[in-house]
């Protein structure tokens, strides 16, 4: 393998199933995608599984990559979709358990629902703002969570986000604003964190 393979050359090699080229190609994405997955899913273990799933998916489908869009956009699109799918799967499981009481012999047990918001005790214990923000991000709706992660944590432009998420620029603009407001609302549930702000 040549020392300086261009991305395009690497993609071609990957399309022929060359694992080494694939590993070179994804080298710079691994940590970023793991971090996106980590922020999306909220724990390292799931994030690792999902990150691997993302790259396997990319490896399997790179032959269908048309090279019309940028590789990074394509990779992040797959990553966000896999993360969102995972969250949907989880929700589905939770929905079932929340909506349907467990039937036992002659009786039923109402399932104790897990509180999705911040626990006041946790807030008291961990006053540090960044920690609270991380927790608050975890409580956002999926569609808000992903734009906060892409925009405010990873620093993608509005245009890049619109390509990754395959939606219009207008949608991205309004969604980012709503997501930040939502994040703010979650944080403000514990007003003392922001007591110096008169909001």
């Amino acid at each position, binding site marked *: 393998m040549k020392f300086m393979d261009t991305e395009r050359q690497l993609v*071609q090699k990957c399309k022929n199933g060359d694992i080494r080229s*694939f590993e070179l190609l994804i080298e710079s994405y691994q940590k970023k995608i793991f971090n996106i997955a980590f922020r999306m899913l909220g724990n*390292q273990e799931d994030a690792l599984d999902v990150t691997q799933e993302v790259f396997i998916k990319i490896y399997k489908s790179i032959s269908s990559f048309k090279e019309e869009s940028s590789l990074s956009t394509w990779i992040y699109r797959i990553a966000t979709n896999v993360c969102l799918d995972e969250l949907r799967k989880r929700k589905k499981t939770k929905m079932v358990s929340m909506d349907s009481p467990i039937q036992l012999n002659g009786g039923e047990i109402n399932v104790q629902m897990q509180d999705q918001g911040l626990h006041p005790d946790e807030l008291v214990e961990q006053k540090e703002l960044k920690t609270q923000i991380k927790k608050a991000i975890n409580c956002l709706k999926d569609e808000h969570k992903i734009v906060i992660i892409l925009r405010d*944590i990873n620093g993608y432009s509005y245009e890049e986000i619109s390509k990754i998420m395959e939606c219009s620029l207008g949608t991205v603009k309004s969604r980012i*604003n709503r997501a930040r*407001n939502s994040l703010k609302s979650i944080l403000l549930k514990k007003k003392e964190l922001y007591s110096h702000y*008169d909001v």
Partner: protein
Amino acid sequence: MLTCEQVREQISLYIDHELTDDELQTFEQHLSTCEQCRQEVDLLKSIVRECNEIEEVELPDDFKQQLHQKLVQTGQDTRQTKRRWYMNWKAYSGLAAAILLILLVKTQVFDSVHDSINRAEQAYVTEAVLEDHSIADTAVKRAPGAGDQRLEAASAPLPPQKSGNAEIPEYQEQNSRSVILQDKPPVELECVEDFAGSALQRLENYSADERLDKENLSVDILKDELSLFVCRYQITMTEEDQTLLLQKLEEQTFEYDIDYEMIEGRLMIGVLEKDGMPEQNVGHMLSFIQSIAANSEINDTKEDVTETYQALLTQYDDLTLKIQQLQQENSEPQEIEKADKQMQEVRHRLYEIQNSVSKCIIEVEIGDSE
């Protein structure tokens, strides 16, 4: 002048410098007069800043190793899946051959072919054994005293039927085979590993070739198949017949996600046709295909084929003898039937081996074309 509500909708755009100059001006005008909106902007700014500063989490040390293992596994799975497709591809080419067989019969080529069976020991014979549904295409090169001995073993003519119609064995009567004389001598196969790199390079060039556009993939393959068969057997087909054949083949659903095998198939066709490919590339093609064969289950087939095939042949002979003895001794019909059934099973396995070495045969064909 903007309302507070309008300003709040634009706060993120303001923070991210996404407002136009005019929008920015009116936005800032409002801020200069509205303390509450100013505080709101500051609050959101601080949240965004905190998000910006969230530190990255490191990947575990063994992540790459784990991923590598999964990739290798995925690669193997994919190859197996595609190989299955490849066998389908072979089947479709078999279908083409089946249709062409009808044409062969029509054009009386079959007569000369039929005669050739009697001289099979002296001739180099390519067989295409086809079955109605599985439509396996097997082309076996007969090459006494030359070429790959293991392949030769696999390609030895099938033993004659006990019923006495030795020249036209039973499977031929199943309306599904053609035997075609080839007068070119075989070329001994050599796996040239050094060539693998250039062959792969060539493969890359092929995959960049616009002809590999997936939209036209199935049609392209079909056309290649068609022209291959037409030129290989020098059969004149009317355009109408060609169209009909294409339509029939296209009815078989081709998957589009078949780059690798498609390329592989195309290379073979290219080599076989030769006219469709520059001379200097033929060597690369050959080594590429050989390198695939060297790494595939075909290699195993080649390793095992002599022993298995010879053992089956011996079994077959023994059973034939046994049946003859049983018939002479006027034994119980059930006993004869049982031996006959065993013999049919052995025969079936012999055919299976022939099918499994079909890829080796392509190599021989390529050797011929060089």
